[in-house]
C-alpha cells in the first residue's frame, strides 16, 4: 500500500545510483576486456564441455547442499544442548575459508591418507577415492551447507512462538507441522538458498580441478584462466565471462520467480524453546543428524588446526605484516560493502525490482579474473595499477560480498520499514535521519552479521591482488600461496591456520558487535 504513495526520495535515488555504479564496475571490466580483443571469439567444443560441466556440478552441489541443510537446520531448531551456540558459529567457518585451505582440510579427512580412510583400513577396507565429480560436489557441499543451514535455521526460529503453541494445543501431528509450518517456510527460503549456492559453484575453479580428478572437470573459470594466461585470447576470455553472466542471469530470473529468502543474520542465539511441545519426537534422529553434520563440517577444521599449529609461531615476518594488511583491507572492504549495500537494500525494501536483484546476484557469478584484468586495462593508461592494488582488491572484495550482505540487510530493512516506516513518514524523517532513527536500530544484528561475513570473505579471498601485487603488498592468502609455491609447506599450513583464525575472529567480532549494539 505504502509502495504506491511513495515518491522517489533522495535516499531511493541514491540507492539507484549505487546499483547502477555497481553494475558499471562489474560489467565495465568485461567490456574493457572484450574491446581489447583483437579478433572475435568463437566457443569451441571444449568450451561447451566446460559450460556443461560447470552447470552440472553447480546444480548437483546446490541441490545437495539445500537438501542436506533442511534436516540439519530442523534438528538444530528443535534441540537445546550445551555448546549449541558454539557449534552454530563453528559450522559457519567453511563458508569463509579460502578455497585451497578448505580443500586440504577436506583431504586430511577424506583423502587417501585421511582419517576416514585410516578408519576404513582398521576394519580392512580400502581407502575411499575422493577424486571425481563426487569429490567436487562433496567440497562444494562442505563450503555451502553452512550457508544453507543458516538460512533455514533462521526461518525455523522466525516461526512465532504463539503459533507453535497454538499448534500444540490443537494436537498437531508431525505431518500437520510439515504442512502448515515447514513447507510454506521452505518454499519461501529454499529457492533463494539454492540460487545463491548455484551461483557460488558456477565460478568454482581450483576445487573443481583438484578434486575433479582431471580435465573432465574443467569449469568455465578454468577456461577463462587458460584464455588469459596461456592463449592471451582476450576475446575468448570476454566471451566466456559473458557466458558466466548469462548463466547467472537465467538462473536468477528463474529462481526469483519463486521466492526471495528471508533474513540472514537475525537471532540465531534464540533458544528453540517454542518447539518444546514437540521435543519428544525424533530426539535420536535429530541428535544423529547434528552429530554427523558437526563431524563433517568441524573435522576438516580440526585437521587444519593440527597441521598448522606447530608452524604458526615460526612464521616469517612478512606473513605477519601480510596478516595485518589483510585485516585492515578486510575491515575497509566490509565498510565499503556496507556503504554500497545499505542504500541498495533500502531501495529494494520499498520497490521490488528484478533488475536490482540481478545486480545484487551478479557479482557472485562474475569471474574475478575478468574483473581484475578489466580493471587493469581500464586503469593502466591513467594510473599505475600496482600502486592501486590494495584499493582495487578492497573494492572487488566488497563487490563480491555484496550479494550476501544484501540478503542479510534486505529482510531486516523490510521489517524495520513495516514496523516503523509509517511513523517515520508521519514525522517526515528522511535520508540520514530516517536511517538513524527508524532503520539502523532495528537492523543491528543483520548489519553486524553482514559486515562480519563480508570482512571474513574478503580476508580469505585471494582476489585480484594476485594480478597486481608487488612483494611489499601481499595479503595473507597471497603470502600463503607464495609459501606453497616455494616448497614451504609447513609455513603455508601455519599461514592457513592464521588465516582461518583471523577470518573467524573478524566474523565473530562484527557479528557479536551487531548483537550487543542491538540489545544496548
Amino acid at each position, binding site marked *: 500500500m505504502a509502495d504506491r504513495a511513495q515518491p522517489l526520495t533522495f535516499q531511493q535515488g541514491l540507492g539507484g545510483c549505487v546499483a547502477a555504479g555497481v553494475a558499471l564496475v562489474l560489467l565495465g571490466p568485461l567490456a574493457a576486456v572484450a574491446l581489447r580483443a583483437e579478433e572475435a571469439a568463437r566457443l569451441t567444443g571444449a568450451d561447451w564441455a566446460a559450460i556443461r560441466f560447470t552447470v552440472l556440478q553447480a546444480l548437483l552441489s546446490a541441490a545437495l547442499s539445500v537438501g542436506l541443510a533442511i534436516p540439519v537446520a530442523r534438528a538444530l531448531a528443535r534441540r537445546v544442548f550445551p555448546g549449541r551456540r558454539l557449534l552454530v558459529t563453528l559450522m559457519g567457518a567453511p563458508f569463509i575459508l579460502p578455497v585451497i585451505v578448505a580443500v586440504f582440510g577436506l583431504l586430511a579427512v577424506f*583423502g587417501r*591418507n585421511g582419517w576416514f580412510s585410516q578408519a576404513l583400513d582398521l576394519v580392512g577396507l580400502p581407502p575411499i577415492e575422493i577424486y571425481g565429480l563426487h569429490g567436487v560436489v562433496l567440497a562444494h557441499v562442505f563450503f555451502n551447507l553452512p550457508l544453507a543451514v543458516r538460512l533455514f535455521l533462521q526461518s525455523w526460529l522466525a516461526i512465532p512462538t504463539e503459533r507453535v503453541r497454538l499448534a500444540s494445543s490443537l494436537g498437531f501431528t508431525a505431518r500437520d507441522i510439515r504442512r502448515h509450518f515447514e513447507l510454506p517456510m521452505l518454499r519461501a527460503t529454499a529457492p533463494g538458498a539454492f540460487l545463491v549456492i548455484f551461483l557460488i559453484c558456477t565460478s568454482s575453479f581450483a576445487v573443481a*580441478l583438484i578434486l575433479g580428478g582431471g580435465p573432465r572437470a574443467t569449469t568455465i573459470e578454468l577456461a577463462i584462466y*587458460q584464455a588469459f594466461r596461456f592463449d592471451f585470447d582476450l576475446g575468448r576470455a570476454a566471451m566466456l565471462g559473458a557466458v558466466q553472466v548469462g548463466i547467472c542471469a537465467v538462473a536468477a530470473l528463474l529462481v526469483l520467480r519463486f521466492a526471495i529468502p528471508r533474513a540472514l543474520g537475525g537471532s540465531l542465539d534464540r533458544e528453540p524453546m517454542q518447539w518444546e511441545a514437540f521435543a519428544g519426537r525424533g530426539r535420536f534422529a535429530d541428535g544423529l543428524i547434528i552429530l554427523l553434520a558437526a563431524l563433517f563440517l568441524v573435522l576438516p577444521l580440526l585437521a587444519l588446526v593440527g597441521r598448522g599449529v606447530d608452524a604458526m609461531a615460526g612464521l616469517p615476518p612478512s606473513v605477519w605484516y601480510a596478516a595485518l594488511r589483510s585485516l585492515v583491507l578486510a575491515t575497509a572492504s566490509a565498510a565499503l560493502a556496507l556503504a554500497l549495500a545499505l542504500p541498495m537494500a533500502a531501495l529494494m525494501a520499498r520497490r521490488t525490482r528484478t533488475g536490482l536483484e540481478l545486480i545484487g546476484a551478479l557479482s557472485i557469478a562474475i569471474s574475478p579474473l575478468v574483473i581484475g584484468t578489466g580493471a587493469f586495462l581500464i586503469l593502466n593508461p591513467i594510473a599505475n595499477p600496482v600502486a592501486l592494488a590494495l584499493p582495487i582488491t578492497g573494492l572487488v572484495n566488497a563487490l563480491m560480498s555484496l550479494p550476501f550482505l544484501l540478503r542479510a540487510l534486505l529482510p531486516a530493512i523490510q521489517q524495520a520499514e513495516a514496523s516503523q516506516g509509517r511513523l517515520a513518514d508521519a514525522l517526515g524523517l528522511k535520508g540520514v535521519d530516517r536511517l538513524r532513527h527508524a532503520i539502523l536500530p532495528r537492523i543491528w544484528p543483520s548489519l553486524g552479521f553482514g559486515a562480519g561475513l563480508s570482512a571474513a570473505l574478503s580476508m580469505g579471498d585471494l582476489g585480484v591482488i594476485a594480478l597486481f*601485487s608487488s*612483494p611489499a603488498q601481499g595479503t595473507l592468502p597471497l603470502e600463503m*600461496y*607464495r609459501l*606453497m609455491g*616455494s616448497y614451504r609447506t609447513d609455513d603455508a599450513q601455519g599461514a592457513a591456520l592464521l588465516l582461518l583464525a583471523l577470518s573467524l575472529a573478524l566474523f565473530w567480532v562484527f557479528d557479536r558487535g551487531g548483537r550487543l549494539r542491538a540489545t544496548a
Partner: protein
Amino acid sequence: MRHTIMATAFSLIAAAAAADTPVLSIYSYDSFVAEWGPGPQIEQAFEETCGCDVQFTGAGDGAALLARVRLEGTNSDADVVLGLDTNLMDAAMQSGLFAPHNVTVPELTLPVEWESETFLPYDWGYFAFVHNTDMQDVPGSFAELAESEARIVIQDPRSSTPGLGLLMWVEAAHGDEAGAIWSGLADNIVTVTPGWSEAYDLFLEGEADMVLSYTTSPAYHLIAEEDDSKAAAAFEEGHYLQIEVAGMLAGSDQPDLARAFLDFMLTERFQSIIPTTNWMYPAALPVDALPDGFDTLIMPERALLFDPATAAALRDDAVNTWLTALSR
C-alpha cells in the same frame, strides 16, 4: 592524525630523494620475489654496484607474467622481465615487446647450446617425477609408469608451466606415440591441479606416490629440512629441460641499467644465490661451485628440449591430445 600527516610528509620527502636515483623495475613470478625467494638477495647485491633502486613486482607464475606484460603493452613500467621459460619464449618474441640484450654471453653451464639474442637464461632444471625413497619399484620410463600401480599428480598444461613442460616431455620423448602414453597414464593420474604448489602439497600429504616436479626438488628437502626421504625417478628416455630466462623490454626507460642487470645476472654473485633460493641449477656456475647436497641428485643422460618455435607450434595439438586421452 598528526602522525599520519608526519608519516605522509616523510614518505613524500623520501620519494623526492629517491627520485634522483634511477629505478630499475623487474617483473618476475611470485615465488621469485617472495621474502624467502632469490629476489631480496639479488636486489641487495645489484643495488650495491648499480647506483639504482631495484623494484621487483610479482605476477603469478611465468605464464601470468607474460600475460601481464602483454596487457601493459608498450606502456609497461617494467625494464626487465625475469621468469619466462623456453615454452613461452616464442609468444614473448611474437609480442614484439622485447629488445635484443646485446650482452656478451659468458660460458654457460646449460646442457644445451644457447642461441637467443633476446633472452638470456639464468637457471634451469629437469622435469622429473619425485617420490619418497621408500617407494617400491620406482618406474624408469613412461611405459613402466603407465604399467605400474603408481598414483601420480600432475599439473594442468592449460594453467601451469610444469604441466606444459610434461606435455612437451612426452612429445619430445615419444612423438607420435604421445597419445598412447597418455592413455596408458590415465589410470595412474589421481588428479590434475591448476599449479605446481597444489600438486606438490597433495604429494606431501600422501595423496599420491609421485608428483611432477624437478630433479632438484629433493635438494630442498635435503638442504633446508635435512630430510633425505625424497628422490627423483630417472627416466631412460631422458628428461625435458626447463630453462628460465630474462629479457629487457624495448620500451624500457632505463635500457643501460637493464642491460647491466642482464650482465650481472650471469655473474657468480647472482648465480650463487639461485640454487638454495630458487632450487634450480644456475645457468652459469660450474658444478663444483654448487652447494653440498646437489651432488646427490640424479643427472639425466639425455636432455630433451624443443626450440621455442617448435614448442609453440606443437602446443595446441599436444594439449588436445592430452585432453582427449584423459577425458575418456
